[in-house]
């Protein structure tokens, strides 16, 4: 994937893809997409950079929004504050950034680094640190393989700024979350500053273009009146890092249980089978993102593999907040690349971290 330019025509596909990679969470990419659209309409020049074009000693920084999706739809993320976060990291580290990288490919944080790219002229590396969406900032492959999350710069629209320096990434999350709450439960942040070599070695690569291609394969299938799920499966067979992709279940929502525990949107959704799944039931558990899909005691997919709930007809991704009774959906499972499946990675964002007793088994062995 050579270095390319972002443009308006790519935006709808890209947003659909970031929602897909959000696996039910990550914040609705809609608002991030609007900001990006405004920048592009104003003539912004945004470069998406092949990670292999990074020099080993380049300086790469992640930018993102931290906080509650509900707040981000009111107090819209601030492009200006994200740029200031980046500048503070540069002052901390004593060098200018050469490139930006997303911490999280899924949801709203997939879009925001491009906004900063539009304002600074810095290229945005094709890749991220999660390969999807996760609820906490230590759940990045950057951190799993040794890049510290801190110093983390958190900033609000008023110019209030707090720098968190913690001895572990888990503690970085712990302290940053408090600051974020005080800032109104939304902070612009810059974190995971690293070398080009580290970005290439620890990142989940090519997820920016992956999002665009997922979105495109769904759209093209719709446009040719063919089945978007077949389109998706065919895409993943030929994608850069070939991935396992299967429809796990076809059903309608018959029960939906939500609760709040420690600020998480935790719950489960039960589907009753239709079509090929008639007579069966599927349960999907979520904590902001969809975590596991199981039929009775049989697991069909487990975090960190992607469990995506899509509209049965047009394959539009559905978020946990968008779930409603009677919705007809197909539940799709997609494998994640090896960098997200090592014992070190599973320690940080495998089933155990989310309180699930079952041992992680790759989705291609479950289905």
């Amino acid at each position, binding site marked *: 994937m050579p270095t390319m330019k972002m443009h308006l025509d790519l935006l709808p596909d890209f947003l659909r893809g970031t929602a897909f990679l959000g696996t039910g969470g990550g914040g609705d990419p809609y608002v991030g997409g*609007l900001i990006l659209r405004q920048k592009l309409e104003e003539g912004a020049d945004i470069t998406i950079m092949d990670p292999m074009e990074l020099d080993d000693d380049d300086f790469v920084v992640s930018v993102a929004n931290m906080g*509650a999706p509900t707040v981000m739809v009111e*107090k*819209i*993320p601030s492009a*200006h504050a994200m740029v200031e976060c980046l500048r503070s990291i540069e002052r901390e580290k004593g060098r200018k950034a050469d490139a930006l990288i997303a911490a999280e490919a899924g949801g709203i944080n997939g879009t925001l680094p491009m906004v900063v790219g539009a304002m600074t002229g810095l290229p945005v590396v094709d890749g991220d640190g999660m390969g999807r969406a996760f609820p906490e900032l230590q759940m990045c492959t950057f951190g799993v393989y040794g890049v510290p999350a801190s110093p983390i710069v958190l900033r609000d629209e008023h110019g209030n700024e707090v720098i968190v320096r913690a001895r572990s990434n888990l503690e970085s999350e712990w302290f940053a979350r408090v600051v974020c709450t005080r800032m*109104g439960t939304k902070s612009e942040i810059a974190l995971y500053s690293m070398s080009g070599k580290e970005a290439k070695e620890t990142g989940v690569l090519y997820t920016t273009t992956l999002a665009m291609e997922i979105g495109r394969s769904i759209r093209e299938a719709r446009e040719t009146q063919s089945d978007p799920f077949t389109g998706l499966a065919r895409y993943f067979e030929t994608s850069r890092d070939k991935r396992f992709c299967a429809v796990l279940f076809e059903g309608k929502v018959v029960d939906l249980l939500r609760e*709040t525990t420690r600020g*998480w949107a935790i719950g489960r959704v039960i589907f009753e089978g239709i079509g090929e799944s008639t007579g069966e039931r599927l349960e999907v558990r979520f904590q902001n993102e969809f975590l596991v899909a199981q039929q009775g005691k049989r697991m069909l997919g487990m975090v960190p593999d992607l469990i995506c709930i899509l509209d049965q007809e047009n394959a539009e991704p559905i978020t946990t907040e968008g779930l409603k009774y*009677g919705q007809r959906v197909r539940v799709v499972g997609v494998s994640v690349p090896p960098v997200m499946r090592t014992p070190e990675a599973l320690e940080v964002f495998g089933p155990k971290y989310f309180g699930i007793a079952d041992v992680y088994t790759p989705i291609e062995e479950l289905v």
Partner: protein
Amino acid sequence: MRIGVDVGGTNTDAVLMDGATVKASIKAPTTADVGAGVVAAIEGVLARSEAAPETITGVMIGTTQFTNAIVERRRLVPVAIVRLALPATESLNPLIDWPRDLVDTIGRNVYMAKGGYEVDGREISPLDEAEIARIARDIAAKGLESVAVSSVFAPLNNAQEDRAAELIRAEHPNAQITLSNEIGRVGLIERENAAVMNAALVSLSAKVVGAFRDSLKELKIDAPFFISQNDGTLMSAAYVERYPVLTFASGPTNSMRGAAFLSDQENAVVVDIGGTTTDVGVLARGFPRESAVAVDVGGVRTNFRMPDVLAIGLGGGSLVRGDDAITVGPDSVGFELTEKALIFGGDTLTATDVAVASGLVDIGDRSAVAGLNGAAVQRGLETIHMMVEDAIDRMKTSADPVPAILVGGGSILIERDLAGVSTLSVPEHSAVANAIGAAIAQVGGEVDRVFSYEQEGRENAIAQAKDEAQAKAVDAGAEPASIEIIEVEEIPLAYLPGAACRVRVKAVGDLAEG
């Protein structure tokens, strides 16, 4: 006695109801000035029932005029948009994803000012009164008469929007002002969009409501009149004049409420077969189930509470094609049915022709379809039934059969029991279900706010929300003793401190008489 009126794109329907009895009903053509059609329809039902105008205690009107104006970009006025939020939200201007032709119609008169609230209730910035006054003078100088005001987390606290309205009015006394907190929910962009659309409609709403008022005067009906809103409850005419945007989905809602009333069922699937489309919705406790996703109106994203309706391209005017595999719709001859269908001397095979050919109904010239292939007619009819069955199945929440109510002029297309349906009712007067839905509507009040369960306690928070919803229903004209809480929904919010929970409560009651 009450009169219910439904002003649609093609027909203006009216019913006269005495308590729960339909005394008379009529369909009249909608007129360009709206008023003449309303007068004709009401005169029609009064004449048919021989009721005197003095016996009418209320007139309830449902209308799609405002939705159509947005969709057609007609009769809209330019709008000034004032957002109270800086330094927050500077990254995203209003109107970003509006269709260009709609922005051309209303202009891009955007003012960003200091203000807004945090989710925990603090001010993002205090209102800068001098700044608002300056903006108001600029709006006045530009000759803009309609103003939409939005602010961050206005559903949590409306004080800044209210104060801004006072300040604007002081500098620009003729301004008509729409406040986002009065019409929308959490989600700044969608709420602001709704406020701007509302502001664009203020001139039309004055005309339409004025036309209704004049019609009643002309008819010597001296009763209060109401207009139905999205959720099937009524608003006073004066309120609609200020908030026309709240009528956007009243059409399907009235049709479903009317169906519930006519069939005496509170939980059922409603199938409304018209000339071009079939709308399938679900009644839960007598009210339409609402859509959970953002709804576009005329290409603009909103977060209105709209009934969850599935529309398929099947109606009395649907084109029928093929010999072996028969397809029906989605295209239709629409209002030209009485010229183009075979049975009316035309040359187009429609779903209505198929119904006549198979003997389901006897309208038009039956001989015109006598030559059709009998087996193909049966297959066409089968296709129609399968389309309806599939639509019902999509809207059901369980595999068990559900009761279904069939309304609308196209209900003649259905001849047999439908799969997945326990009992199928086709009530009398179902062709004017919309007007009946308007006539029987109640008045409601709604609260949608984020509470901190940790600070306020869950019980307290819900009780407070219920009190507020009831008070809003009384303000809207409900008889206090009749008010019921029909919905309490709690949505826990991720990441927010203090066990934050979004609580929605809806109260409805009967209209107080007199």
